[in-house]
């Protein structure tokens, strides 16, 4: 438990409001893991591959929460890059997006997404989703070290 609650969670989300909502949901569901936020795909990739401004930050996340609709490099590309890299591919990637398009869903799973969750419109739904997420990934599932 301890090890899991120490794991860094990477949140890739461009929308301020959505990020604030997510933080709030984390707080309410008691998910106290450290969090790092990237606002677009390029920033996320820089963090993951220790490039540019993250060149000296050697941390790697234990989980990635990924929005698809991002300015510039989008979530699909981040997902593909992560799942094609042998060091990063074991990191669970949870796609968290507004889209419920079947094409988007199958494309994400085909690229190696571990879970695909549509952002619920209501905060209650959103909070519930985050709680289940926490239960499953941080209490039931066994993750690689």
């Amino acid at each position, binding site marked *: 438990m301890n090890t899991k609650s120490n794991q860094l969670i990477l949140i890739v989300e461009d929308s301020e409001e959505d990020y604030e909502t997510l933080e709030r949901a984390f707080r309410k569901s008691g998910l106290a893991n450290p969090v790092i936020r990237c606002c677009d795909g390029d920033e996320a990739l820089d963090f993951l591959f220790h490039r540019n401004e993250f060149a000296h930050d050697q941390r790697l996340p234990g989980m990635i929460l990924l929005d698809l609709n991002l*300015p510039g490099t989008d979530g699909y590309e981040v997902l593909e890059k992560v799942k094609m890299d042998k060091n990063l591919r074991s990191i669970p990637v949870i796609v968290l997006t507004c889209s419920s398009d079947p094409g988007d869903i199958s494309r994400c799973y085909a690229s190696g997404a571990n879970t695909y969750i549509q952002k619920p419109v209501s905060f209650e739904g959103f909070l519930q989703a985050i709680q289940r997420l926490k239960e499953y990934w941080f209490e039931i599932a066994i993750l690689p070290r």
Partner: protein
Amino acid sequence: MSISLKFRSVAALSALALLTVLNYFIQNYHTQTVDNDAHLLNQAGRQRMLATRVAYLSSQLLLYGDEPAASGEIRQRLLQTAKEMAEQHDSLVHERHGFIDDLSVRHIFFEAPDMLDQKVHAYVASARGLANSRSEAPRRGDSYYAQIDSLETPLVEMMDRAVMQYELSADRRIKSLHLFEIAGMLVQFAGLFATWLMIFRPMGLRVKQYWGAQDRVNADLVRSNMALAAQKEALAREKEIADNLRQRLQAILDAAGEGITGLDLDGNIIFANVAATRLLGYPLEQLLGVNHHQLLHRSYEDGSAFPQEQCLIHAAIVEGQSYHSDTETFWHADGTALPVDVVSMPLYEHSVLVGAVLVFGDISRRKKAEEVIQCTMRELERSNRELDDFAYIASHDLKEPLRGIHNYSSFLLEDHGAHLDEEGRRYLETLLRLTQRMETLVDTLLHYSRLGRARLNIEECDLNELLAEAIDSLMIQEKHAEVRLTCQHPRLACNRVMVVELLHNLIVNGLKYNENTEKSIEVGCNQGPKEMIYYVKDNGIGIPEKHQESIFRIFKRLHGRDKYGGGTGAGLTIVKKIVERHGGKVWVESRMGEGSIFYFTLGNMGSDEHQIESADSDR
């Protein structure tokens, strides 16, 4: 040469025969004359001899008168001689063609003062007298003897003279006969010459001509033989070529995927290739000689009767016109309709129209494909329209509750703001900001959908004016930038409002995504291969190559929401829509840190009224 050779040869030969006969008579006469002369001269010589003998015998008788035996014999001989002399004289004088005929001789005989004739008679008489005298021994004084003795010498002299005279005239005769002979010879030569001239020469010429002609004929024959051989060879070659051509033609006909049939002027099938039999389902023998229209073209696709008089293919055949159609229907042997693309070409033989060649292909697949495409096109058109309509309706309808949220949030903030703490007010402000953002997005969507629905009114514009309008609508701080136009052909036909917006969007992007202290925009145009290519060039931050396509997607932003002045991410989508409405296209060339060039074309709006019409009729 009007007189025939036959006649001339007969005439010439007759003349020659006549000449020969004439010559014969001349020769004959000549011989006779010479013969006669010789005979007469001989006789004359003999007469002279007889005269001498008389004188001799007379003298003998004088000598031997004493001897009776001798004198008797001498007398006898004298008488004999005298008799002979007299007879001979008669013959000389009286014989026809005789010696005496010669005038000068005659003169000697009868007309000279002492006529020879009388002398001869006297001489003979004397001789006879002497011979018959009774005296046993005549004496020298005997009158007869005296007579003989005195007459002998003049007689002989005169006879010599006569003979000489005669010889002279005989000589003359011979000479004249010689001349005559020469003349005859000449005449004969002349005759021969004439014969040659009239027969042999023309004959020779004829022969020569004949042989010449023969030679020519022979030469001609040789030549014509050679020509014949050459002709034969050429024929063989032509036949070979024709055979090759025929084989090639057959191969082409058999290899052709399209049906090929030959029709005569009545529309009867005179040949058909393999593909034709395959496409029509009839074996070749059921096609040949059969009327094409009646068999294959008898009714329209809907089954109604199609008389041959109305058939355009048949009309084209009869008039020697070519014809092409892809709307005809032939009937397959199994009764199914066969939509065909048919071409009819007139067929000529020796420049005479004899019929036509029909080439037809089965276009049922093409027709089906066309139907599918048309169906898809219609479907696409419909769904596009529905999408536009949906966006339009959705934008309108979405805005209504949005306005409600916005308004009620405002009311709450205004009326109860004092009861809220800092965080509560921040939440409400975020709510208002988000409703505003939502409204902007909906407005953008509405505007975008309007661009697809609005009438495309095309007018002649000047790029300078359009650019001025576009700059005019810039915000104050953006107006400091340098925007210049470098266009040789600023006239263009377009929708004024849309192109102003297009330019505005590109210029705004060029200035917004620009970290340069001296921001500059260049608008220009170049003549492309088909149409004018316009461009808007900036010295901004540039666009990574991997995003150069996605930038045209609606609401797609390359940067964070509030970076570079924010925005909905619809500017380039609207640019693209405007360009596409004009029938043009838009693309970008960019290098990071150096700037971007957006190129666009606007189709050929001014020159193609139809395109304008069809674009208008879309709505």
